[in-house]
């Protein structure tokens, strides 16, 4: 990665590394919850190493643990990953990477690396922020996923350890930082109501996808009011407050 200086840590590198530690640590909860959901060790490791986007990984195991079909888990995880395409576009615009860097940069284009990068003022700092947060989270997230999975394998009954409560907390923790305006709050409440109505009427897993469809229709109908993603810095607030 060009622009990295080894001698001293810049503010962007420090921010990236501190977010990497904070985020990496909760790989423990992902690993343990994936095992509790019924995945084996290798399936859990694959999700962190290959999928590597926390929200989608939690969504996948959240559908499985609720008794949903693997195809429904696949759909929920994929829909939740769509925001990463928007991030990739923003990172491409901000860092103007060379073509040969794109394959690995794409893999570490997630909430944290995008937020740290776009939060910086100058181009070199943007690059350092993306690199330190992206690679840092990747390494630590995978390490702690394995630790959590090994721990999960020894835990036995998930409810006895409060792991079902931990899963609820994990999802509200991912949602909370995004509820900073009235519209997201209303969208979240409406989504909860639609899901609750759909649960008794459809098979497990489907309520999440029905809710996603409703949200997409709503967003398409109201989309013209918001600005293009590359013109606003709202994203940078999403995760920084957690470091």
């Amino acid at each position, binding site marked *: 990665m060009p622009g990295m200086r080894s001698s001293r840590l810049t503010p962007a590198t420090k921010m990236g590394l501190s977010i990497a530690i904070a985020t990496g640590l*909760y790989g423990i909860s992902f690993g343990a919850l994936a095992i509790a959901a019924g995945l084996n060790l290798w*399936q859990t490791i694959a999700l962190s190493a290959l999928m590597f*986007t926390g929200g989608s990984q939690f969504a996948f195991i959240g559908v499985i643990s609720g008794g949903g079909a693997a195809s429904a888990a*696949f759909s929920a995880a994929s829909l939740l990953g769509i925001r990463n395409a928007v991030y*990739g576009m923003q990172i491409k615009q901000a860092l103007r990477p060379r073509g040969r860097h794109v394959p690995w940069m794409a893999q570490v284009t997630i909430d944290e690396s995008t937020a740290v990068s776009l939060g910086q003022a100058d181009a070199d700092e943007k690059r350092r922020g993306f690199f330190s947060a992206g690679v840092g989270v990747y390494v630590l997230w995978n390490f702690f996923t394995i630790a959590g999975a090994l721990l999960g394998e020894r835990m036995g009954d998930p409810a006895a350890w409060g792991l079902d409560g931990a899963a*609820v907390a994990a999802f509200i923790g991912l949602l909370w930082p995004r509820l900073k305006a009235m519209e997201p709050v209303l969208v979240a409440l409406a989504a909860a109501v639609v899901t609750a109505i759909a649960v*008794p009427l459809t*098979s497990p897993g489907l309520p999440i996808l029905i809710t996603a469809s409703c949200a997409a229709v709503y967003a398409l109908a109201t989309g013209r009011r918001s600005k*293009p993603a590359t013109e606003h810095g709202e994203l940078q607030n999403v995760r920084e407050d*957690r470091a």
Partner: protein
Amino acid sequence: MSELSWWILAACLTAYAIKICGYFVPRKVLDSPTMSHVAATLTIALLASLVTVNAFTSGQELVIDARIGALAAAIIALIFKAPYLVVVITGALAAILLRATGMAA
């Protein structure tokens, strides 16, 4: 490989394909106000839906048990700006505590 493993692999490949799309799809396609609005709204709706499913359902039934206490405890932790891992542990502890004291199933 089991069916679940194949779905996991497919989901991983799709996640990567979506990420790389951001770099290769022409900007005017993705950088529309509609696209960013859809992505943001979908993210919020899916997470809210997952909260609901994990907190209030058991199979096809809506239930109230210790997990609602976990949700409340996690929200309190979030209001006090606790780090993510603390929020997760708070949720687990609340569920354990409610069950141990017999206040919830």
